[in-house]
């Protein structure tokens, strides 16, 4: 026998799990990972799992992790776009699992892009 509070807890917990299928998707932060052959060869798989793991550990709702193809800058892979609900897009390059966790903590949660990992910073160094 469940109490009203327990039922509500089940609702919230399950909602987090199935929010992918809810219709109000505009609210979501989208993390888009380049998963073409070049991306996978450069190590995009562990990056993707690191994102998933970090988002799961922090019980973040309304974050979607999706993949995309090659954008043509294969030398900068693994590349990750973080798109916030306001439509702003930040592109991160040469991401590894550690960087991925930083991006979740600073950008996805707190809204501060990690400037040093972005495409702009990488191009300046080059």
């Amino acid at each position: 026998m469940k109490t009203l509070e327990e039922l509500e807890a089940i609702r919230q917990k399950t909602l987090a799990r199935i929010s992918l299928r809810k219709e109000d998707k505009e609210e979501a932060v989208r993390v888009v990972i380049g998963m073409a052959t070049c991306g996978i060869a450069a190590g995009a798989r562990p990056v993707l799992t690191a994102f998933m793991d970090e988002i799961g550990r922090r019980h973040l709702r309304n974050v979607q992790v999706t993949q995309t193809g090659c954008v043509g800058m294969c030398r900068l892979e693994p590349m990750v776009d973080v798109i916030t609900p306001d439509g702003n897009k930040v592109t991160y390059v040469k991401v590894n699992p550690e960087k991925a966790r930083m991006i979740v903590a600073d950008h996805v949660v707190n809204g501060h892009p990690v400037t040093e990992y972005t495409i702009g910073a990488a191009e300046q160094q080059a």
Partner: protein
Amino acid sequence: MDIFRSHVLLCGGTGCTSSGSEQLLEHLNLKLKEYDLDREIKPIRTGCFGLCEAGPIVIVYPEGTFYSHVTVSDIDEIVAEHLLKGRIVKRLLHQEKDVDHTVDMALDQIPFYKHQTRVALRNCGVIDPENIDEYLAFDGYKAMQKALLEMTPEQVIDTVSQSGLRGRGGGGFPTGQKWKFARASQGERKFVICNADEGDPGAFMDRSVLEGDPHCVLEAMIINGYAIGANEGYVYVRAEYPIAVKRLGMAIDQAKEYGLLGKNILGSGFDFDVHIREGAGAFVCGEETALMVSIQGERGEPHPKPPFPAVRGLFDAPTNINNVETYANIPQILLHGPTWFRSMGTEKSAGTKVFALGGKINNTGLVEVPMGTPLKTVIYDIGGGIPKGKAFKAVQTGGPSGGCIPAEHLDIPIDYDNLIAIGSMMGSGGIIVMDERTCMVDVARYYLNFLSEESCGKCVACREGIKRMLEILTDICSGKGSEEDLELLESLCHTVEEASLCALGKTAPNPVLTTLKYFKDEYLAHINEKRCPAGVCPDLTAYEIDEKLCKGCGVCAKNCPASAISGERGKAHRLDEACCVKCGNCIDNCKFNAVRVKREVRA
């Protein structure tokens, strides 16, 4: 990781299961393990998506990508391309017929879904029906919570009354009023029954709701029990629906485990329990009085009303009985209020209605539209029109108790009263579309044959009358009819209608009366010219091949089971009438309209 980045929904309704969705699920699980994706991607078996024609259907979220006709080997590609690399497999995207360009086909973009409003089917194809947590997450049992803890039974009944909900089983009786009668009746025990004995050929909405969202029916039954003061409920469901029976059983167990069913629900002091009774498939047991005696273990025969079930029903106790789809609307009405429900549909028929589209139509499946939607929209915009460019002839609504509606009435908005006005009825919501190759006399004969087998035999008029009508129609179909037969047929119709006890007999003449009214010329062609204009009745049919139109492609010869067609490739073919078995394969398969039904038939 306890979250998944992608959900893969596979339809587990009866339609898709029979086209192999179970094997797809097995293979998908295997492949996900192989690619080490099984902890980030979650396969979910859901209920019916409605577009059964395109099954098995697979939907990938968060994109909402809609794949149709998926095979086991397609799964390999979906996993390797879409799920691993994020590249949508364009080749497998659902394509509406007659649309030659493939656009980004997400679920809600395709025309089939665009015109629909889903209330009763809202969770079908969205949640995992075998998991109560998912139902809870989509506001499940919230309406029950509200009713039990915040409302009095009278308030619940008032809300239902104000919503204008009418019985979706076909009768269209106001649901709130029914509940009010049952509440007013005195009795030590009262019962709630869910009628899931869906027997109309071609109707399968109740099955889909039970398979795709069993908890919403349970929730509504509990609310119903609370409103009328009943502590026990029965679901009378056909044994031919094994998946529905299984999922309903699972739902009852899960609800009991959570304390949503049983003693002292949510601490409200209200007890409620639900039992499942499997019916053996007698059509007449869909009639409420027959259904109740069947639950009692007796022979399924209707009884005179009054006494109505609300006064003396199951085990002689006051009983409220509603159809599955009616119940599926209840939780939403309580959650969103009667005004919301009334905002859909027409003044006298509020809300939406689920229709099962079948027959000669491109998108066979389940659709839910607001009441008042024109038949034309349902058949052409949602249903995708008639296959193979054939012409529309009629549409049959309401199953064996309904009638055939010709093209001239296609613009009428569908609601209870409009359909009755043109001689048909809503029924449970089956819509069977017929094209130029359907013989209306044969259709009437088909339904009478069904009804003569399903008549329980209690009333003489129904038992004997339908049999005699069937004999007359069989005679007409084989060229032995006379014009006097039509008069006899019509008078029999009225006798059966008046002298039968239950709706089975009372509505049995409808298929005959409407075909006689709208397609009398077809009857006359059978009787006077001894020919079947649609080319269906074997004794009154002959085919011919137009030598000018025939390109000699050989498709007709290949499809002929009797080898009655011969000819050289590239030259006009010939049909040997002596060998022809009149199956019509040649006509249905000819791309050049070179095969025709002959105007003159040698009797």
